[in-house]
């Protein structure tokens, strides 16, 4: 099987710790369900990610060098 995370189109995905997530949600003043979603079956998702987890994605950005975004794992 091909290691998807090695592809240059795929940014780094990491599962976010619950405490850090609290800070993030507070900073943006949103609920976790307001975050963009990612499917549980997504090939780029780390193995340990489960439904309801939030993954942190660090993209190489065209406008800001690096950009951090979050996605909620859904069914």
């Amino acid at each position: 099987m091909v290691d998807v995370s090695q592809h240059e189109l795929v940014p780094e995905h990491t599962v976010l710790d619950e405490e850090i997530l609290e800070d993030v949600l507070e900073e943006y003043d949103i609920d976790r369900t307001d975050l963009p979603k990612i499917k549980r079956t997504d090939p780029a998702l780390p193995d340990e990610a489960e439904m309801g987890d939030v993954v942190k994605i660090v993209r190489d950005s065209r406008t800001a060098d690096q950009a951090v975004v979050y996605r909620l794992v859904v069914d």
Partner: protein
Amino acid sequence: MTESRSAVGAGGAPGNGYDVSDDVVAVVEDTDLPRRLKDEVYGTVESREDVTVEEADEIARAVEARYLDTRVDPLDPVGTVSAQSIGEPGTQLTMNTFHYAGVAEIDVTQGLPRLIELVDARKTPDTPMMTVYLEDEYATEREKAHEVVWKIEATKILALGDVSTNVADMRVQISLNRDTLEERMITPEEVAEIIEDSLGVETVQNGAAVEFGPEEPSYRDLLQLVEELREITFKGIEEVSRVVIRREEVDDGEEFVLYTEGSAFGDVLSIEGVDASRSTCNNIHEIHRNLGIEAARETIIEETNDTLKEQGLENVNVRHLMLVADIMTNRGEIESIGRHGISGSKDSVLARAAFEVTVNHLLNAAIHGEVDDLNGVTENVIVGKPIKLGTGDVDLRMGSTGR
């Protein structure tokens, strides 16, 4: 927009690589600037020499003020601005479907049809294609590169030899070309076996000659078999009808790159010799299936940007395209803009009805007793209320403050 937030770069101690004093680093790092702009400031300070800390601070503050100025204001209608910014140059796109892209002699849909195809999130593009990069020795030796080509390009019987029908004996006779077989690494035995498996007939193989016929002598069955024989893919990937091999310049020399007509991205990634970290495909759904939603988002931006660039419209700000891609991938799967996607899933009945198929939306809403909260733009324009954007969403409240 989402990407205005920045994180400290991976390799980045602040001021890394620039000959500036710690005090300068301190004042610059104190600003709200993104990494790249901070680096820009370091570069400038370094090249001017003799810049005092006070001056550096002044520069940093000025850049910061300018940066904050260029950010989107609260309640700015970014979506509408993006729609206009893509829509206006869109009027200048060709409606001509075919035009080969770049340098490879492969036809790719360009201009307006391609842009529509992307935002409509069509299951398969009009002209699917892949760009396949190769690994190590496969990328530098033509022979090795060709090995990969044969694994990808669909090989039909007509490429392997001559087919003739012997009507007298009711037989299909194939005389295979030895050189071609050797080049494409397939034996006559394999050819015979594939024919048996796919057509369900007994074959007689003798050297480079293979022959078979229908069970019962029937002229119709015989012709039918020949038809089916032509359809069989003996080697390679069925979806890929043609592969073009090109030599391209890279930083350290040259490498062979394959361009394909037709795509089967998942299959190609697992072929030996294919660089699975760089190869791409113009079908956003295949990218989504194999690399995930983030890669799909990236591809949408890349493809829309390239389509506009190709037509000489490179001054559409990439942020608009990023917004489109963000919206299309927001729910973890690719959604189209338009009636069946984003616009069709709006909360407001009036907004949906205003977009397309007005009567159907109103009728369905009436049947289900839907309520419109009048929060969006369209519905407020319809009923003649101020829209909730910009100053329209700011309420003033009068009251007295305790002295």
